[in-house]
């Protein structure tokens, strides 16, 4: 459980007393801006709009009910945030103007930290993508795809082969990663940012 100073992002209580946050408060504090998560009336518009809801363990609405109920483990072991495609339909249709997509990103981050989510495909895909960005400053698809497929779906590589060949023959694939000039500066920036995140528990 995270210990944070109450009153950071809420207008509610002015006391500066440190006490353990509820899971709801933790999620709200870890989301940039004002997510309005506590305004949910459980209408189900988000779950109704979501294009990938059929494949989720829990609908987005159920996740919010579970967050409010403090079911941290269940939420962070759910596949729901990983099946969010960030289409923002939920966010623009929510009658209470809750920043649902931003909350899904928060849940992804918390889920990785908590290490309760069983299927590593989605987190690994992001990790692979990020590795290239952090070392070169640019995305590198061939690197991302080859390492990801080898790790997660080596036999599926055969099925992907025609598409891979197509990408090559149509000149849509770089064989080597590109690098930005200011890669050292970028590395310093990212390192500093990560340091601040941990120390401030932001």
């Amino acid at each position: 459980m995270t210990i944070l100073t109450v009153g950071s992002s809420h207008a509610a209580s002015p006391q500066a007393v440190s006490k353990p946050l509820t899971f709801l408060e933790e999620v709200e504090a870890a989301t940039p801006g004002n997510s309005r998560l506590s305004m949910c009336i459980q209408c189900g518009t988000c779950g109704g709009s979501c294009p990938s809801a059929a494949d989720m363990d829990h609908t987005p609405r159920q996740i919010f009910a579970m967050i409010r109920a403090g079911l941290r483990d269940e939420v962070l072991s759910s596949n729901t945030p990983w099946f969010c495609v960030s289409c923002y339909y939920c966010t623009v249709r929510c009658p209470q103007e809750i920043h649902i997509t931003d909350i899904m990103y928060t849940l992804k981050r918390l889920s990785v930290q908590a290490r309760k989510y069983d299927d590593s495909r989605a987190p690994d895909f992001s990790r692979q993508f990020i590795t290239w960005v952090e070392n070169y400053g640019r995305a590198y698809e061939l690197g991302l795809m080859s390492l990801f497929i080898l790790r997660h779906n080596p036999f599926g590589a055969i099925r992907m082969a025609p598409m891979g060949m197509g990408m090559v023959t149509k000149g849509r694939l770089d064989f080597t990663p590109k690098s930005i000039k200011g890669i050292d500066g970028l590395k310093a920036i990212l390192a500093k940012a990560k340091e601040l995140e941990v120390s401030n528990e932001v």
Partner: protein
Amino acid sequence: MSEQRIGVYVCHCGSNIAGMVDVADVAQWAAGHLKDRGVVIARDYKFMCSSTGQELIEKDIKDLGLTRVVVAACSPHLHEATFRKACANAGLNPYLCELVSIREQDSWVHTDRAAATEKAKAIVSGGVERVRYNEPLEPLTVPIHPATLIVGGGIAGIQAALEIADAGFPVYLVEKEPSIGGHMAQFDKTFPTLDCSACILTPKMVSVGSHPNITMMTWSEVEKVEGYVGNFTVTVRKKARSVNTDLCTGCGVCQEKCPRRVIDDVYEAGLGYRKAIYTPFPQAVPKWPVIDRENCIFFERGTCKACQKFCPTGAIAFEQQDEIVTINVGNIILATGFDLFDPRRIPQYGYGRLANVFTSLEFERLSNAAGPTNGHVVLRDGVTEPQQVAIVHCVGSRDRKYNNYCSNICCMQSLKFAHLVKEHCPGATVYQFYIDMRTPSKGYDEFYQRGLEEGTLFVRGRVAEVTDAARLPGEEGKLIVQVEDTLAGKQRRIPVDMVILSCGLEPRRGAKELAKVFGISCSADGWYIEKHPKLDPIATMTEGIFIAGCAQGPKDIPASVAQGAAAAARVLGRIQQKQIALEPIRATVNEDKCSGCRVCNELCPYNAIVFHADRGVSEVNPALCQGCGTCVAACPAGAISGTGFSNEQIFAQLDGLLMNNISKSSVPA
């Protein structure tokens, strides 16, 4: 000034004030520190507004010969009248009493007891200094004209009109459509009794139409309102009907023969047609048609005149002009009703693009036996009966992006629609999609039970979208309602033939402009603002102007009727009193100081200032003046003063608040 004898009364208000302010200390402080300022007695008491509390004041006035009274308690909005009356009972002019708030302005907004107590002392001190300059005032009484104007001929306006007219007083009923009846005339059945709407409405309409005390002005609009409570002068534009009402028998031949067919956007909700000369519906009151000049062939190109040719009494009068009528009334009731939320603002529901998505009013017309399909509930092709129907709640309501509020009637209306679909289309499957089921009034939850018994399938989930993009087998050619069934916890795609949107209620499109004409205010949502949301929903802040029905906020027919009757009762009370006392807090122009610059004339929101050209000075009409103080502040010469809020009073109160008066007096330790 002669020495005043001031009584100070500090109220505990239970723990509301005493919980934060040391009231005993304040009273004691006033008795000591303000003795030189005229305070002869200072008391604290648990509830000053109680009869015992009031008697304390009355007794002191009599026994101690008090000349001024300061009560430190709640806001003047609540009990100023109470304490003024107490003073009056004891023989002291009520305007020599000041109520200063140490509750809303002090105990309720602070958390530091010491600071709150000191502030209370300052507030009392300010009150004492101000009251020294209070003058005895007499309220202004104005007569009440016995006639009443009612704007809006819907059920609320009709109810109010009948109540006042039955009591024997004249009523002018102004309605902008050719007939009275309002939205209720469009409905098929009403919940929860499933009475035929027209059947219960038309008898009242007929009563209005034939009532000796009611002057109906339909196809008319109010253009200007001048005057003040008891004495309004209203200018009404009676638009030209192009029909001589003395000759017209209402036979309807003109409508039959008229060759120009137009979509009826108002009564038929765009689903049916009318002619260029028309009465909106057969039971229209009055029965005389009007010519829609924008769509009439004669007014377009000078030809046709079929109506005139066939009219058996020669009642068609193309040359008729609008008539401007001026009426005098004592009170006004605004009952202008609502408009429906436009669901084209929610593109994902498909209204306007997908043919078989209907609004609530469109469905009422389909279901109504006198409607464009003679009561057959059919798809937009006009022929096919739907097999599956979806009814969607909360369209444009309870949504921060459209209207934050709940529209009150949609849950019940949706239940009614479900029943009507099952009645008209036997064997049809009906789905109802809701967030909550709101069925609070008499017979309402029982109606919900009936819905369940009749086999309506309720799905708790706010509809995400209505689409024709088929994805799965069985969806081709259907409208698909995509929703999360929150109770089952799964997203569902439900194929239906017809979707009915229970659209929210909104204020009339022209409500804001109309409010300006009458000098009342609208809330942020656009509904007319009542004097007090709990205790006075039918009065406004403007004396003599009342509101009733959906103009005040979304509500069902029983509530509209009750409000119409309530407004009528209030008006009848005023009429019976024959006169009304107006607050003497008014502005007056010191003619010696007035330079005739007329800056104040244009600034007055109540048009209460007249300019006398012969003397070159402005004068405030005390009956129209509401004491807002705008002119007082604006006058460059400082020539305008407010009785009850003079410059002396205000500066004195400031002095008192700042405790400057204390240094003037010798302070006992």
